[in-house]
């Protein structure tokens, strides 16, 4: 589904991704871990097409197409979803109107007619139920005045509505209390299927207790320095990241 | 029509005719001539029909003036200085009489840190030639032009490159007259690359006869990476009226802080403070506090011109209006086309204590760049009834509670003062004026 090859990226001339290789297939859940500043969120931003991030080398294929060639909205319409680390507030734009627009834009891209109001509302209701999402939040302005947890849950709810092929969850667990974490994770688990895939970016192993990954990758200094199964996450939890840094420093070529 | 019952012709009427006689033989004749022409081209003394003088009628003050001729110098004693109550510890004390440096009463900073000269003796200094009469903003101000045309003397200060001037320079402006006088002090202060300097100004009127208008101009330049903190403590008795022009030009990465505190009995205080951010990554903080009592008119006109990207300016002015006093605030923030990534903030709060006090405020944003964050806010109000009730509910009497709240309002600003002795003096002065108000 997603094939990242030797991806290099920079912000304002500073290299932050220095050769990422990653292959994600349908039905898989990949966790990306790493210390602060290792490039985890940058990877999410590059994949979603944030403007400030300049790709300097490498390629990314998504469902056989060149992802890097697409505008952010086209990536979204192709089925790439980013759950934001910090979902923005947009005053005056109602949550429901926003979602309806997004759903219909994506449908239009795939040559489908806009959803009728009734069908849309039905879908909204069933997904609300599925995701245990507070219906009252639907009529408020997009994320405005939402608590941190409500914003994250809103993002996951959007994910349910938009039914992406690949969801990238950028530190979705940050700022969540244990109850909110459970609800968010349960939501994600309900959405898991053999046809979609997840990349879960997190600093802590905690989230991975709820969403069990097939693969765990450790990102350090703009590169994936270690890959393994879910046991790797436990190892990181126990030992922290410092030992990794030591190892890697030894592996770095002498300049 | 005229406000003085006297047949002595007022300066207001005779000024044009006097220009050539008064300035004969003075230094910088061309600059003076040009400035006087410009003054006349601007229409002479501004009336309330001129937008920037809409709320401040200066004409009556000038009608009562008779001369530009400075009186003969007088000897000033240490005791007289003490009596002003303005002296500060741990400063380089620099005393000026009607704009003339008084060396015998002054202590200058070490020459390797800063040069301090009379303007009349500074003409050969490279920093003087580079920056004197150079501010673009001069042309906009009637009174700056008048000053250029007629100025007598003032201080040239140059903080040397990389010098950290140890102690603040405390300039005490003394004024003395024998008849109604217009005095035009003129200053030029330059902080060279990487220098850091603090300048405090205070003012006091000595015994004299009649009123005086002090029309001063400070041109200040902060060059690359320099820092200047400028305290204008507008003190002084009832015979003084002030029109101040402070024109600042900031070069890259420099910092300029201005503290303008009006705590005086002057009937007229008008401050024109203009900051021009001429290069990238400059920082500017403007703090103002004014208390206006009696028939006083305190008028602060500020402008901040963001000309280049990545600069930041902050402005906070607060005022307390009492008796029949009038407060005017006009704050302009101008963001030019090239000044992307500008952060500019401005706030003006006014507390109106008495029924006959007036306040006119006009915050103003003019923005021609898009990637900016700018805001201004202004309030006019009284002591919060809710806060008052809260304090009373805790057993504090009405007068005390009011006094506490007014002081809290004022001391938010004075807390920004970095020099403890200045802060103490300002807070004492403020307390004196404020308690008079609250207890009435």
């Amino acid at each position: 589904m997603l094939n990242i090859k030797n991806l290099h990226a920079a912000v304002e001339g500073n290299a932050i991704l220095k050769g990422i290789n990653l292959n994600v297939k349908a039905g898989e859940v990949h966790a990306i871990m790493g210390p602060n500043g290792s490039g985890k969120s940058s990877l999410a931003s590059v994949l979603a097409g944030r403007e400030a991030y300049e790709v300097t080398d490498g390629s990314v294929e998504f469902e056989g197409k060149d992802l890097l060639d697409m505008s952010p909205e086209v990536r979204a319409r192709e089925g790439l979803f980013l759950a934001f680390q910090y979902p923005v507030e947009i005053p005056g734009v109602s949550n429901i109107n926003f979602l309806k627009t997004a759903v219909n834009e994506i449908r239009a891209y795939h040559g489908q007619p806009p959803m009728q109001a009734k069908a849309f509302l039905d879908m909204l209701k069933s997904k609300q139920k599925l995701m245990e999402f507070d219906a009252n939040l639907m009529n408020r302005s997009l994320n405005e005045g939402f608590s941190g947890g409500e914003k994250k849950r809103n993002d996951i709810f959007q994910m349910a509505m938009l039914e992406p092929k690949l969801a990238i969850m950028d530190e979705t667990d940050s700022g969540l209390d244990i109850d909110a974490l459970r609800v968010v994770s349960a939501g994600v688990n309900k959405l898991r299927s053999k046809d979609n895939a997840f990349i879960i970016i997190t600093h802590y192993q905690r989230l991975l207790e709820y969403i069990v990954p097939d693969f765990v990758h450790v990102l350090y200094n703009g590169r994936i320095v270690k890959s393994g199964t879910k046991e790797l996450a436990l190892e990181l939890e126990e030992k922290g990241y410092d030992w990794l840094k030591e190892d890697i420093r030894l592996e770095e070529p002498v300049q | 029509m005229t406000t003085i019952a006297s047949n002595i012709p007022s300066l207001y009427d005779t000024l044009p005719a006097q220009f050539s006689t008064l300035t004969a033989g003075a230094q910088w004749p061309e600059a003076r001539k040009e400035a006087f022409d410009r003054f006349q081209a601007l229409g002479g003394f501004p009336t309330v029909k001129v937008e920037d003088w809409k709320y401040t009628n200066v004409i009556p003050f000038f009608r009562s003036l008779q001369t530009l001729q400075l009186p003969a110098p007088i000897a000033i004693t240490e005791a007289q200085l003490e009596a002003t109550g303005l002296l500060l510890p741990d400063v380089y004390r620099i005393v000026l009489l009607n704009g003339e440096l008084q060396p015998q009463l002054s202590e200058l900073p070490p020459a390797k840190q800063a040069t301090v000269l009379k303007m009349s003796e500074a003409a050969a200094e490279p920093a003087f030639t580079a920056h004197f009469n150079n501010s673009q903003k001069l042309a906009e101000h009637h009174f700056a032009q008048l000053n250029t045309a007629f100025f007598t003397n003032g201080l040239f200060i140059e903080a040397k490159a990389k010098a950290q001037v140890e102690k603040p320079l405390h300039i005490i402006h003394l004024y003395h007259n024998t008849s109604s006088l217009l005095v035009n002090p003129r200053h030029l202060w330059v902080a060279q690359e990487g220098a850091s300097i603090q300048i405090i100004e205070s003012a006091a009127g000595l015994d004299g006869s009649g009123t005086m208008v002090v029309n001063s101009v400070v041109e200040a330049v902060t060059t690359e990476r320099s820092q200047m903190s400028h305290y204008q403590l507008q003190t002084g008795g009832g015979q003084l009226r002030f029109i101040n022009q402070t024109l600042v030009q900031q070069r890259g990465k420099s910092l300029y802080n201005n503290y303008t505190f009006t705590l005086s009995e002057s009937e007229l205080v008008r401050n024109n403070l203009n900051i021009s951010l001429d290069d990238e990554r400059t920082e500017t903080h403007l703090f103002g506090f004014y208390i206006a009592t009696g028939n006083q008119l305190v008028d602060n006109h500020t402008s901040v011109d963001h000309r280049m990207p990545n600069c930041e300016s902050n402005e906070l002015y607060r005022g307390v209006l009492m008796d029949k006093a009038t407060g005017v605030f006009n704050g302009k923030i101008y963001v030019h086309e090239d000044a992307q990534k500008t952060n500019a903030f401005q706030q003006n709060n006014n507390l109106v204590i008495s029924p006959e006090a007036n306040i006119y405020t006009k915050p103003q944003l003019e923005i021609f760049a898009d990637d900016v964050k700018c805001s201004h806010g202004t309030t006019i109000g009284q002591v919060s009834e809710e806060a008052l009730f809260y304090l009373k509910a805790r057993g504090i009497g009405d007068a005390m509670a009011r006094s506490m709240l007014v002081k809290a309002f004022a001391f938010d600003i004075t807390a920004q003062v970095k020099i403890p002795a200045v802060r103490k003096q300002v807070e004492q002065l403020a307390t004196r004026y404020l308690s008079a108000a609250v207890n009435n």
Partner: protein
Amino acid sequence: MSAEQDILQELAGRDYEFGFETDIEMDIAPPGLNEDIIRFISAKKNEPEWLLEWRLKGFQLFQKLAMPTWQNFKLPEVDFQSVSYYAAPKNKVKYESLDEVDPELLRTFEKLGIPLEEQKMLSGVAVDAVFDSVSVATTFKKQLNELGIIFCSFTEAVQEHPELLRKYLGTVVPQSDNIYAALNCAVFSDGSFVYIPKGVRCPMELSTYFRINAKNTGQFERTLIVADEGSYVSYLEGCTAPMRDENQLHAAVVELIAMDNAEIKYSTVQNWYPGDADGKGGIYNFVTKRGICKGKNSKISWTQVETGSAITWKYPGVILQGDNSIGEFYSVAVTSKRQVADTGTKMVHIGKNTRSRIISKGISAIHGQNTYRGLVKVGPNATNARNFTQCDSLLIGDRCGAHTFPYIESKNNTAMVEHEATTSKIGEDQVFYLNQRGIDSEQAVNMIVNGYAKEVLNQLPMEFAVEAQKLLSITLEGSVG
């Protein structure tokens, strides 16, 4: 389907019931401004002597008054002699068929959701006359009559209700108020007159759709609304104009009078032709609007959505004379292309416990220049006056401008005045967030802008709000690179 379509359909289907659509060929005055033209207009409308005198006084003042000089943009010279001051509607169609109408204009109407029949009407085919300089009454005249509500054209009011007109005309906006107001006094063409009797709550929105059609004409309508004690009325005003290369002048005067316990709500959606991308053509919209809360507990509320005109210059204000009266001003002004909008309000607090609220949302795109200019004035007797002002500017593109000039004057120590203003760029992270959900940048900007303007749009009656939202989108088209 939508309410605004209903309204337009209603307009289209209406019979023309007023007497001023007479022999049109006769009613076109040559360009030029002089006493003769004023006498000509007055005679055409069969006006009483006092009104002619009043017009002539307006003309005298116009000749004396100077052009304003305080604006921060370059005011183009207006050649008053090249304008025709009396261009009554023509029966002769401007366009023979829809095919001849400028396709750009048709697309605009399409986007507005105005169906084909209305397009014909609005683009000057066949029913041209309905809109040119003439106010339109609702079809519910009978129902209104039963309640004693007067809603008619100014011309009709002159004939039918001269005593009311004479009592109130020019009492809120003095003839000498400004040069354009004086001009309007001299040459006003028509407009609307509304009187709501004591205790009557007007059961429906009263609406006028203004349109400039004929070439080289100015439009100078007057609106006068009087709400007597305890009455209520909501009034809507919409404006469009066709695209023309030359600038056209619109100088209207609106006066509102609210007696004790009365309330007037006045909403405007202004969509005069803004000129093209190079600033060619477009309407000069120089309008004087003012209301007076004459009585106790009265309320006047202005809501405006300004999307059109090359230059907009207007400050709908409220004189808060009655104790406990309330003035409100809600505004969204969008400037794109080379448009200039200099708009705001004047709230003059005279009575005790008077309150005012100002919400202004400016949006500047491309080369647009947007200025908020306002006055909040608290007089010495306005005990406990309160004002709150929020004045925000949104910038889209790096060559537009946003400016704020609020004048605040207080002569009363019990007054509380609060003014807040912010200026910022449209949020890149907001646009990206919407992009990431599959919404393209142009639509994302529309959503954000509409959200930003919501507080004001919410003040509009439903049918206008829908139209206003669409207008915002159309105006901002092409502003996202």
